[in-house]
């Protein structure tokens, strides 16, 4: 249990840092969805199945979709070159 928790927490926090550091916004969006998934797993560990399900469906699924649609509308939904010059592509 504690090892599982440690791994999930480390991955979640890593993804959260990646959201801020990735130059490519589409990649950052994917990382944000990963954070939601990680948090959903933590909710399962905490015996909150309702919350976990909502976080997975809303946080990772719906919110990822909304973000991706907004990116497409902004004309930034590309993986190739980030707006900042592509320090950290994908």
């Amino acid at each position: 249990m504690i090892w599982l928790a440690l791994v999930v927490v480390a991955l979640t926090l890593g993804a959260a840092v990646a959201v801020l550091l990735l130059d490519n916004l589409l990649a950052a969006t994917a990382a944000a969805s990963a954070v939601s998934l990680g948090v959903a797993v933590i909710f399962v560990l905490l015996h909150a199945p309702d919350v976990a399900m909502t976080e997975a469906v809303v946080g990772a699924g719906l919110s990822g979709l909304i973000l991706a649609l907004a990116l497409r509308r902004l004309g930034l939904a590309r993986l190739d070159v980030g707006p900042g010059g592509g320090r950290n592509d994908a």
Partner: protein
Amino acid sequence: MTTQIGLVFFIAAIGLCVIGIGGIVLSRNLFRMVLALAIAEAGANLLLVLAGYRWDAVAPILSAGQMPAPMVDPVPQAMVLTAIVIGVGVQALALTLVVRVKQRYGTLDMQLARERMNAEIDATADVTPPRSQERPRGERPLPAPAGGAHD
């Protein structure tokens, strides 16, 4: 062991909050601010669920009308359900605003957008900006407030 695992979860919740708040404060990109906000909210939600967690307890679902074992506190879970949905609504609204800002001012940079906004407010109010007399970096004159300011 018990306090250790508690500490791990606490660090996750507080870490997410601090990373998210830091992202909002440090980032100049409007879109990334929206992402950072989602992270900060996830951290706050995690802390709320932690507030109802109990050792040796199961998920709060009755089977056969009886409580089989001690259950974790359902109230924070209900609150978090509410908070998650509120969060996604706010996020969607923020994104529509980002789309419009990009369209009107052609930038996703908070600093630039703010300068242009202040210049536009000054222009509609017919005030010359107090310090800098020159136009903001946008080379073309500011777009007229399309649709007309409401009054």
